[in-house]
């Protein structure tokens, strides 16, 4: 399956991407993830001020196929959520690395970024999973 990997992001095994700018970071799901989910029909986002540990579910994304948890790649506090997804969940399909972002967080521990995959590693990881 052909999918895009944004070279400015790092990736978690559950197919979330994260892009760090200073002490904040933006999180969304990868192009591969949105293709696997098919058309997204609903996204449930957390409240601003909620905090999550690395690997904790922070959002739910629903497609016609399934409802799936979305996990936070690194620990942090929610400082912004993408309200546009409420009326236009299709943004997750159309621009997974752009307007389809989910949340911004205040990064708790930058070292946790080391646990994540580089774009190339992620590409390989997906290829392996696809078998």
């Amino acid at each position, binding site marked *: 399956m052909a999918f895009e990997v944004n070279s400015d992001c790092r990736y978690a095994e559950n197919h979330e991407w994260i892009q760090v700018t200073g002490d904040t970071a933006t999180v969304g799901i990868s192009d591969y993830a949105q293709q696997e989910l098919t058309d997204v*029909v*609903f996204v449930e986002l957390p409240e601003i001020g909620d905090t999550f540990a690395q690997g904790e579910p922070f959002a739910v994304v629903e497609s016609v*196929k399934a409802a799936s948890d979305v996990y936070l790649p690194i620990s942090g506090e929610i400082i912004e959520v993408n309200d546009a997804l409420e009326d236009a969940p299709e943004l997750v399909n159309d621009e997974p690395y752009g307007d389809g972002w989910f949340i911004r967080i205040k990064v708790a521990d930058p070292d946790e970024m080391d646990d994540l995959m580089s774009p190339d590693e992620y590409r390989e990881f997906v290829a392996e999973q696809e078998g």
Partner: protein
Amino acid sequence: MEPVIYELSAPGRCAAHLPELDVPASQLPPEHLLREDLDLPEVSELDLMRHYVRLSQLNHGVDVGMYPLGSCTMKYNPKVNEEAARITGLVETHPYQPVETVQGNLAIMHELQGYLAELGGFEAVSLQPAAGAHGELSGTLMIRAYHRDRGDDQRTIMLIPDSAHGTNPASTAMVGMETVEVRSDARGNMEIEALKPHLNERLAGLMLTNPNTLGLYDEHVLEVCRLVHEAGGLVYGDGANFNALMGIVKPGDVGFDVLHYNLHKTFSTPHGGGGPGSGPVGAAPTLADYLPGPIVARDENEAGATAYRFVMPERSIGRIKSFYGHFGIMVRAYAYIRMLGAQGLLDSSMAAVLNANYLQAILSEVYPLPYDRVCMHEFVLQGRLEDAPDVRALDIAKRLIDFGFHPPTNYFPLIVPEALMIEPTETESKQTLDRFAEAMLRIAQEAREDPELLQNAPHHAPLRRLDEVRAAREPVLSWQRPEDDPATDETE
């Protein structure tokens, strides 16, 4: 397409004309309680009759064609069950009647409790729960009560395999416990190593479907139950797949502490649009005192006369359903069990497993089979073909409608990409299984030669492919008069 009944309405038309009022009119309720202009359809009896008969003809049910909906056990519902449930002496009873006057009803319930307990290997059974997920709720409440009685309030972790029905974590959340997902191994069993880190004093229990949603009997089930028990936890059995086990394996003997039965799956009562469901729970001695109640007890006096009464189990979690559960459904399941007898139930499960393996053997020649083992009553294929990359499981499912078959469960279990979960049940003949297999093989051929044929399917159904995405994104939940439709309203 058949219009909704409101579209057939004509002002002043009426199906039943009442005679002139010849008794004093009673007072209307106070005006503030009355709604004005309740918008009801006005149709003649003939309009009404044709409307619903046409709708029934558009429907696909097991009385019309094969319905291989995995995990749902859409077996034939024998019509003798309906005869039994319509016996006047049962129909004309009321749950407020004194129990001395409904001893026959209680006798049926008591015997049904006994049959289910015997099949499941359990100490006692409660017929209260109204459906499978309701049985799960009962079972998780029982497990919670058990731990609290022992002062183990910290036991709130429920382990659930990644192949589980979505209702399992939902039931756990409803009783305020936490779910921890446990992954499956390469053979589709629970991964023992993934289980081990959670075997501690926080463990409340494990919810296990066996055979699981891959249609596979867990090869580690004895060890899994032992490990959970040794850690102080209890094991809940999701009995949705009990149709593979009747007379072969008793879950109580395997180590399950509580299990729900789906009378509307395994025991042939109506399912899916019919119903209602019924999800009795059986419990081992560990949890029997916690069963929801009341349940039926049988007394015998010195003269040998029997009498039935309702009792609450000693530490019952209480009532979880008004009155005594879905009694009419219990009568149907009772009739089913009595018609088949012990040997018949065993034969049913054996035939269900044989039918599934027959189809699996034919279809796995063409469709990928991710867990290549002898299956139980159902199996999971992948709806993707190497030489037809643009065709997905959904397209195959929709194309099956054109061949007169209900599509199998698809995209579940979640651990199989493009899953097609097929459960033929024991009630389909070899001829029907062959026709289904032929359709599936022909669809694989079509997928290669003409993928658009699949992508645009169904072609012969009352409606073509529905826009499920738009329905989910912009749901319209009740019929609206064209002038009220927000889609045509400029101001919205």
